[in-house]
């Protein structure tokens, strides 16, 4: 039913808007806690900030999730897992990267096994600056992402699909073997 079920009644553009509204209002997130960002998630989920009121629930498997949260520095080993999880998710999928480490390596700018910019390897729709952003920032990021989805700007998954070979080339520069 992901094409327009009633092409005659609902014009195609209208159907795209509905699809975007649906995926905006029910973002199921899978939380890849790579570094120190995991601590920020409980306050966002519990009573003070409660992301569930926007329809965002933590899910256990990438198959069921649309939103991938990368919270913290990304080592080369972790990047391989993140790419695998990202590819197991189903379109349309979005990525939010927490903290300064995925942006430019953060405090590990000089480390030999931390990647400096996540965007080169998987399409990131939303960065949250801060050496671990506070829950308010995370909530704001969620709202900003929902607005982007609505305006159709958050199309990371399309970019991944279109420039797949570039992404793959960058990834293979970091780790030599894929199936290990």
């Amino acid at each position, binding site marked *: 039913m992901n094409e327009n079920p009633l092409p005659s009644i609902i014009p195609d553009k209208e159907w795209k808007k509905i699809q975007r509204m649906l995926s905006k209002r029910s973002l199921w997130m899978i939380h890849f806690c790579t570094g120190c960002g995991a601590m920020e998630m409980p306050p966002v989920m519990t009573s003070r900030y409660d992301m569930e009121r926007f329809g965002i629930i933590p899910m256990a498997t990438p198959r069921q999730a649309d939103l991938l949260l990368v919270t913290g520095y990304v080592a080369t080993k972790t990047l391989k897992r993140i790419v695998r999880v990202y590819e197991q998710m189903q379109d349309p999928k979005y990525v939010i990267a927490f903290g300064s480490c995925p942006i430019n390596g953060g405090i590990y700018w000089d480390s030999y096994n931390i990647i400096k910019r996540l965007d*080169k390897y998987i399409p990131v729709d939303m960065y949250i600056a801060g050496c671990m952003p506070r829950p308010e920032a995370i909530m704001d990021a969620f709202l900003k992402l929902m607005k982007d989805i609505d305006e159709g700007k958050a199309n990371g998954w399309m970019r991944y699909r279109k420039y797949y070979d570039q992404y793959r080339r960058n990834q293979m520069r970091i780790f030599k073997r894929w199936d290990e």
Partner: protein
Amino acid sequence: MKAEQIFKELGLEFEKLKVKGNTLPRYKAEVKPEKLEEAIIKFKSNGFNHFVALSCIDWIKDEKFELVYHLFSYKEKEDVFLSIFLPRKEPKYKTLRHLFPQIETYEREIHEMFGVEFEGNDRLGEFILEDWDDMPPMRKDFDTVAYAKKKYESVPLIDEGGEKE
């Protein structure tokens, strides 16, 4: 049996480290590489049956690596550091994993991070770093900033073919 007495029996000169706060007595002694195993066995049989850690120090100026074997005795509540020095060119030493099983893990890490060869330990090779292609990273002469720039900065951005963000 007390640490000093074991040192006297082994004929090693040792120094008592002055440590603030932590009142447990600590002794450090430098041992010849060939005599190390016998010393550890002696300590192990006299109450020092807890092997705390094996660490490696890179004295780049003296061109030497220092391997420190740290033992602890619950009965006497004393710490003993036995250290040996290896040349920096091709550091080679025999494995002591038959004395304490956990030595094997420390040896694997030191091999990966410092490049020290341990004969008899068949599980050396890739341990923590995946697909590592450069010299052991923990050595002082390894320039992480240059490596980071070479490896990560050089990765090109995804050019969207001029489409605006």
